[in-house]
Every structure is written in C-alpha cells, then in structure tokens.
C-alpha cells in the first residue's frame, strides 16, 4: 500500500523534473544553448550539444548543465536618424533610411553582440557607412528614378556582407525621405518659381501664336473669298455690258442714219435743261415760219 504511494510520488517527481528540463522555443524565438558554457563540447568524439536552436519545437535544457539565451526569430526594424549625405556631384541631401533585419545565426550573434542593443548600434554604424558610400557613388538623379531601387539593393547587399559574420541578416534597406537641407530650400524654391514663370510665358506665347495663326488664316480666307466674288461680279457685269451692246448693235445696224437722229433727239431731251441759253436764228428749221409764212429756205438745227 505505502509502496504504491511512494512509487507514485517518485514518478510524479520524475515527471516534474523532466518538465523542468524541457524548454519550448516557439515560432517567434530562437536560442543559443551552451553546455557548461561551451558551445560544442565533445566527449570521446561525440558531440554533446547542438548550440543553434533556430527551429521552433521543444529542446532539452537541463538547469545548471545547459545555458540558454533566447533571441527573437522575427524581422526587426531599425530606423535611422536623419543623415546628411553627399551625392557624386556634391549635392547635399538630407536622408533617412530604415533597415529590416533578423538574427540568422544565434551563435554568431551571441558571440559578436551578446545583446540586441549592441547589435543595433553596429547596424546603425555599418549601414550608415554603406548608405553614405553608395549614395556618394551615385548622382541625385539616380535617387530620383527607378535607379533608386538598385541603389537600395546595393546598400542591402553590402550591409549583408558586413553583418553576416555577426549573425545578422539584412532583409532590406530603404531610403525614406531624401530632401534638400533646410538652408538650400529657398534657392530650390527660387529655381522652381523661375521654371514655372518660364512655363507660364511659354503657354501664353503659344496661345498668342495659335491665335495669330488662326486669325491670319481667317483673314486670308475671307480675302480670297472676296476676291473670287470680285472676279465673278466683274465677269458678270462685263458679260451684261457685252450682251447689251450686242443687242444695241443688232438693233441700230438696221438704219444707222435714223439711229443717229433718233438718239440725238433723246440726248437733247436729257442734256438741255433750264440752265441752257439758246441763240436761235429765225431761219432755223424750227423758227422758219416765225417771220415767214412761206417758210423760206431750209436751215440748220438750233445752235447754242
């Protein structure tokens, strides 16, 4: 009876001890485990410890015997402060950037940095020097074009090469703001204003040009239209006159002498008015009976 209970208690104690010896490392973590403070001790050529616990799962960590340092397995953000950078053409640019990184090798990370704060400091220094050098090799125009991606990839690759020995993998480095320094802004604004003024002038001049073109075209067109009308009407008038003279000629050719007489009479009716003074001889045709009933000899027409 009491053997039973003793056995049970013993078993329970064993289970509890076993539980103490097991550590769960979850997806968000990874660990560096040492055996008597040694990473890879061997006993008769048999490895006693696997130091890098990078996969999630349960691991044996016996108190006192093993030491475990847990590190995040997640991606970690580092945000730089604002930096003054020089491009290849010596343009000063204020820029900041961010780094997404993670611990790729807990053992190396432990050996090189031990603590995350130390690592962050190194990342700050190293990425800054890479950013500075890479930007220094490019023109500002490169940063303001699809080239920017290439520049960022260059920085990422270079930082990775430098940080890999420290157990750090750099996932991405990106430039945030790239701006002119405060003290250069007024000059930039001045340049922008000048440029805009040029555009405004150009647009107005273009308007003037197009308007002039349109107006002159309209004037030309109307002149041509009027000239054509002039031609047409002169032709019509001429034809009218020609036709009329033909008709006159046809009619009067019949008796030219009578025509001269008849037409003269018509002309007299029109031409001689109250302003006219005639001096008439009694012997003229019209007055030949005035003083002579017999009518005497024939005489001329009245004269002026």
């Amino acid at each position, binding site marked *: 009876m009491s053997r039973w209970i003793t056995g*049970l208690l013993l078993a329970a104690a064993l289970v509890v001890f076993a539980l103490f010896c097991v550590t*769960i490392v979850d997806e968000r973590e990874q660990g560096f485990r040492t055996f008597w403070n040694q990473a890879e001790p061997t006993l008769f050529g048999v490895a006693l410890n696997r130091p890098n616990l990078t996969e999630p799962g349960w691991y044996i960590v016996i108190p006192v015997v093993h030491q475990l340092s847990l590190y995040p397995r997640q991606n970690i953000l580092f945000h730089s402060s604002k930096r003054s950078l020089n491009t290849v053409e010596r343009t000063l640019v204020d820029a900041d950037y961010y780094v997404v990184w993670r611990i790729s090798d807990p053992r190396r990370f432990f050996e090189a940095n031990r603590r995350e704060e130390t690592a962050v400091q190194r990342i700050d220094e190293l990425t800054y020097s890479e950013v500075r050098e890479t930007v220094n090799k490019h023109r500002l125009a490169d940063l303001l074009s699809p080239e920017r991606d290439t520049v960022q990839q260059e920085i990422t690759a270079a930082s990775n090469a430098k940080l890999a020995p420290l157990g750090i993998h750099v996932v*991405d480095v990106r430039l945030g703001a790239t701006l002119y320094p405060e003290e250069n802004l007024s000059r930039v604004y001045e340049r922008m204003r000048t440029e805009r003024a040029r555009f405004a002038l150009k647009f*107005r001049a273009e*308007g003037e040009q197009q308007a002039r073109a*349109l107006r002159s075209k309209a004037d030309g067109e109307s002149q041509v239209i009027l000239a054509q*009308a002039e031609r047409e009407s*002169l032709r019509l008038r001429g034809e009218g006159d020609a036709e*009329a003279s033909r008709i*006159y000629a046809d009619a009067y050719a019949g008796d030219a002498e009578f025509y001269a007489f008849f037409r003269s009479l018509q002309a007299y009716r029109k031409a001689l008015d109250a302003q006219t003074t005639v001096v008439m001889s009694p012997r003229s045709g019209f007055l030949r009976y005035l003083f002579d009933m017999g009518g005497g000899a024939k005489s001329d027409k009245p004269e002026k």
Partner: protein
Amino acid sequence: MRGVRFLPLLILAAGLALWAFQGFYDVAPDEQAIVLSLGRYSRTVDPGVFRWHAPGIETVLKQRVTTTLREEFGYRSKPGAQGAEVEEHPEEKVMLTSDENLVDVDFVVQYRIGDPRDYLLNLRPGEREEVLRDAARAVVRAVVAQNTVDQVLTARGLIQDTARLQLQAALDGYGAGVRVENIQLQDVEAPEAVREAFADVASAQQDRERAVLEAQGYTDKVVPEARGRSEEAVNLAHAYHERRILEAQGETEGFRAVLGEYKKAPEVTRQRLYLETLEAILPRMDKVILETGATDKLLPYLPLGRRLEAPR
C-alpha cells in the same frame, strides 16, 4: 478501504478534467486564432465557440482581422473629432520629384491583416505599424521621385496604384501578413512658397486656351461675313447683268417700233419727232432770237457760260 485505494486515480482523473476544461476557448466573429503546438505553428482557427487546445502543449494567439486599419501621412485625424478636423504634419509631406522640384503630398494607407500567422509571428508586436509606416513612406517617396512635379500633380491615380503594388511587395518581403487595400493621395500640391507660381502656370494654360477660342470665334465671324459680302456682290452683279440686257432690249424695242413707223413715212415722222422734241425742251430754256447776220456783232456782248439775267 476501497475508496482509499482509488483515491490517487480519482485525483488524477480530476486533474485531467481540470486540465481539459482549461483548454476551451472562443474565437470572436471578427477574429482569427493561430495555435502553436510545442512552439510550432499548427493551425489557423476561424471564429466559433468551444474550440479546444491542449493547455501547456499548445498556445493560442488571437487577432482581430476584419477591421480595415489606416495609417495617415502628412496629417492625423483627431480621434473622436468630426470629419475635417486634422492635425497637420507638414514635415511628412515634402517630397522630391524627378525634376528636382518639391511637392507636398498627403496620403493614407488602408490595409487589412491578410494572414494572421505571418502577422503575429514574423514581426514584433510593437513594430508592426512602424514597419508599415516606414515602408509606405519610403515607397510613396520612391514613386513620387520617379515622376516629374507635373505628373505628380495630375496623375495621382497612377502613383497610387504603383505605390500600392510596391508597398505590398515590400511588406510581403518582410512577411508582414498584411494586405494593402489602397493608398490614397489626399492633397497633392506645390509647396506654399511656390504655389502662386504654379497657379500662374495654370492660368497661363487657360489664357492659351482662351486666346485660341477667341481666335476661333474671330474665324467664325470673319469668314461668314466675307461669304455674305461675296454673295452680295455676286448677286448685285447678276442683277446688273440682267438689268443691262433688259434695258438694252427695252430701248432697242422702242427704237425698232419707231423705226417701223419711220419707214412708212420717213419725212413726216422725222419732222414730227424733231418738233416734238424741241417743243419739249425749248420751254424751259432761255432763248435769244437773232437775225443771222447780227450774230457776229452781238455775240461778244452775250455773257456766255452764265445765265442771262434780263428780267422778263
């Protein structure tokens, strides 16, 4: 005695029941949960009640996933404030364009948690928003930097779409587990200091259009006028043409008629026409009748070219 014998089993059973009971959990309708089994991802759980996990072996992490989240750049809506009340952050707005101009851009990113597993496991809890903010800031600036200031001011749709795709790609690279719904550019304008100059360009463009319109109006006026005048001239010419012919016909017909009469009795008709004419014209004229021989002597005394003023 029998009871004492079974006591340890009873305690064991009670302990098991307690342990099992602690394993129940609910997932709210707006949540999803992921379960880690001995630290390893095992499953994603949809909303429901009386879900069970093995306590001590499995861990449950819940996350709200249905709400659309937003991050604002260049301004912050005041929490609880109505609509338009915002707090400006001008330092976040200024961006460089590809033609090295500056432009002020406000924007907002709307996103959802696409995959709770990635969202919960790949980034640290305190840094998730910050990663999104930094990435969005970098991406929008990169896209703006690839466009000229005029493109930025006019083609905001294109910039929004490009930025959304690039931001999604960047966040996927970090395993952020986030789905970017959209990026909306809010106010896109020239910086305060040069806004007037930009406005002048806009009005210059309008001036150009107005000048062209006016010129077109001029064309529309001048050409029809010319056509009108031309038609007028041609019509008058037509009329002249007709009139001349008709006049000629009229006159000649009259003449022909008289000629016909004349031919029948030439002497008499001639006489008659002559006398009728003189009869018609002489009454209104001043007349001086002089003997034929007197003309030579008196003529010098007659005021020629001037009307005789002798009273009658």
